[in-house]
């Protein structure tokens, strides 16, 4: 089951982004809050000071009453001289001590002032300077005096404060990103290690373990993982020990059988030569004895071969092989030349003739024993692949048996005790694997069966009788 492809680092990025968002929002709220608080405090202080000052100036202005033209002029000059800009609103008109500060507040403020209270307004001039205008009625007259102060300094300070706060917030966000990234990586690194470890275990490195560094959830997780890996390793070791034991047992059995079977085979071949001289009532039993000794011998041979294959002790020694000649030799040595027709040829292929012999003779033997009629071997070669098709026109193989056809001791018909050991096709397949060859089966009920052996064609190397094992070649 293939795991869905994951994009590594996605969780890390998400964690970092969350960290940045939280830190950024906190910084923004703090900055905005402090900006607004500072702004309000500064404005309040400025206003309070201006109010106190205005009250005092109104008392001073009282000294210039009544406000005729001369008094008005000297009032304005006197205030301007003391460093204050004022606007005087009287019956005679509006007079300002300095033309740049000739700002008269709106009607709401003037109404307040007319009612005898102090009032203020913040205004900005056309050239962009910010003014605070605080005014009141001059006691004992209807004239209004407005003291105008520039608040540009406060605004400049506020701008600076805003810039500092903005830069600070940006720095906080950057720091948050950096710390978030590092933290996310450190937090998630056990996950990454666990993933790598799980992959390593899946690839067969069962000794893989996770470091249990921390006393937290990750540590507990790593411990569980390690326990799982240990259990898995122990289980697999036990299984492969059991398999090795079983294989060794098979090899031992075959080996132990070999000595008595050798004696039996030799004795049988002596007896076979004298069957005709035996009394009739023992002749048939003796024939059966001889035939079964040969069956037993074949079984022991094949058991030994399969245990050698299992142990990986069979080596591949390749050389150029004439396939047609090999097939003829196999058929000749087994006495099948009259029963099996051969068609087609192939250029010499570089392979191990002994392994190929095991494949071909077992597949042909299977066809001869089970397929019966009309066994044919057809050799074709195309596109760097040589194909040998072994066909028969026998009863075919029921579909249910096909998946097990190459299993050891599998018999399609358990009731039938043919001459085969039940290992022939398994041996053929193991040898095919050694050669990188492939065996496939197609069968049709009552029409026959086709075994198709495809062999990769290695081209003969100009400088090589390439051998896969350390050949006993003297070199030169």
């Amino acid at each position: 089951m293939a795991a869905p492809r994951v994009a590594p680092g996605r969780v890390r990025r998400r964690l970092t982004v969350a960290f940045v968002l939280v830190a950024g929002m906190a910084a923004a709220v703090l900055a905005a809050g402090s900006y607004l608080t500072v702004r309000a405090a500064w404005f309040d202080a400025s206003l309070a000071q201006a109010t106190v000052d205005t009250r005092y100036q109104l008392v001073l202005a009282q000294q210039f009453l009544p406000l005729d033209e001369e008094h008005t002029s000297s009032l304005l000059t006197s205030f301007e001289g003391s460093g204050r800009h004022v606007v005087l609103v009287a019956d005679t008109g509006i007079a300002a001590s300095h033309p740049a500060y000739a700002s008269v507040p709106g009607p709401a403020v003037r109404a307040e002032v007319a009612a005898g209270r102090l009032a203020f307004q913040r205004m900005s001039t056309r050239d962009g300077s910010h003014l605070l205008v605080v005014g009141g009625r001059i006691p004992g007259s209807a004239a209004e005096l407005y003291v105008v102060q520039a608040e540009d300094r406060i605004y400049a300070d506020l701008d600076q404060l805003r810039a500092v706060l903005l830069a600070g917030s940006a720095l906080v966000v950057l720091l948050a990103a950096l710390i978030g990234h590092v933290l996310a990586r450190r937090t998630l690194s056990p996950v990454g290690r666990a993933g790598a470890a799980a992959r390593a275990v899946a690839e067969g490195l069962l000794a893989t373990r996770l470091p249990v560094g921390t006393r937290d959830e990750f540590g507990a997780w790593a411990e569980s993982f390690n326990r799982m890996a240990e259990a898995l390793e122990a289980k697999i070791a036990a299984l492969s020990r059991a398999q090795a034991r079983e294989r060794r047992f098979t090899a031992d059995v075959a080996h132990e059988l070999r000595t008595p079977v050798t004696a039996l085979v030799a004795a049988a071949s002596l007896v076979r030569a004298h069957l005709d001289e035996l009394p009739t009532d023992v002749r048939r039993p003796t024939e059966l004895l001889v035939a079964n000794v040969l069956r037993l011998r074949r079984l022991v041979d094949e058991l030994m071969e399969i245990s050698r294959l299992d142990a990986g002790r069979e080596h591949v020694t390749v050389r150029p092989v004439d396939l047609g000649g090999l097939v003829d030799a196999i058929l000749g040595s087994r006495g099948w030349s009259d029963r099996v027709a051969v068609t087609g040829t192939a250029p010499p292929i570089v392979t191990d003739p002994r392994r190929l012999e095991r494949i071909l003779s077992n597949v042909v033997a299977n066809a001869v024993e089970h397929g019966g009629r009309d066994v044919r071997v057809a050799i074709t070669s195309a596109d760097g692949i040589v194909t040998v098709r072994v066909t028969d026109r026998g009863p075919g193989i029921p579909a249910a048996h096909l998946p097990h056809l190459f299993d050891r001791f599998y018999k399609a018909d358990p009731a039938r005790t043919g001459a085969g050991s039940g290992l022939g096709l398994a041996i053929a397949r193991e040898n095919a694997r050694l050669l990188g060859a492939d065996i496939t089966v197609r069968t049709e009920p009552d029409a026959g069966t086709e075994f198709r052996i495809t062999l990769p064609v290695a081209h003969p190397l100009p400088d090589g009788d390439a051998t896969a094992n350390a050949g006993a070649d003297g070199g030169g």
Partner: protein
Amino acid sequence: MGVEGHVLLVEDDASIREVTTIGLTQAGLRVSAAADGRAALASWRAHPVQLIILDVMLPGLDGFEVCREIRRTSQVPILMLTARTDTIDVVVGLECGADDYLRKPFDLPELVARVRALLRRSTSPTTDTVLSVGRLEVDPGRFTASKDGRELALTATEFRLLVELARHPGRVFTRDVLLERVWSYSYLGDSRLVDVAVQRLRGKVEDDPAQPRMIRTVRGAGYKLTP
């Protein structure tokens, strides 16, 4: 079949020893039998034979050691019977100086055929003409070979191999051809027989067996003898 010969059969299993003795006797051979390595060496020293059939798995002194011991003094043909599952057995056996081998369980007729082939190799002259290749001189009629006038101690297999190569100096012989001509295998002989025999022959013929100048390997093809 007319091939007369005296064979020493070394086999520890009594049944195999007995039935093989019967088979070889019926094939017209004289058979002495020994049940272990020491008995085999004692028997060989007392009554030299024309051929030894040697089981690998022997109690006490194993077949390889017996083979090595005999090869120290004699070039008598030796046929190994291997019982182990390992193919390494075959190589070790051949490197000890065995001429041929059979895997157990073997067919009696096949054993007889191998024995006859080996005996033929060591008795029948292939040609009477003395062959002279470079510093080598091979006399098939007298069964002798010499290098620079000094006689070489070759086994029958090594001698036949040298004769085959010396008949056509410079020609490349494939392993299959040599298996057929020297060992009488017509079907899937073991090419290691050739490789190991060539190696042993080089050990006796070449000045420096690691840098062979006479018996050359032709990669991908086989061997040739260069004058």
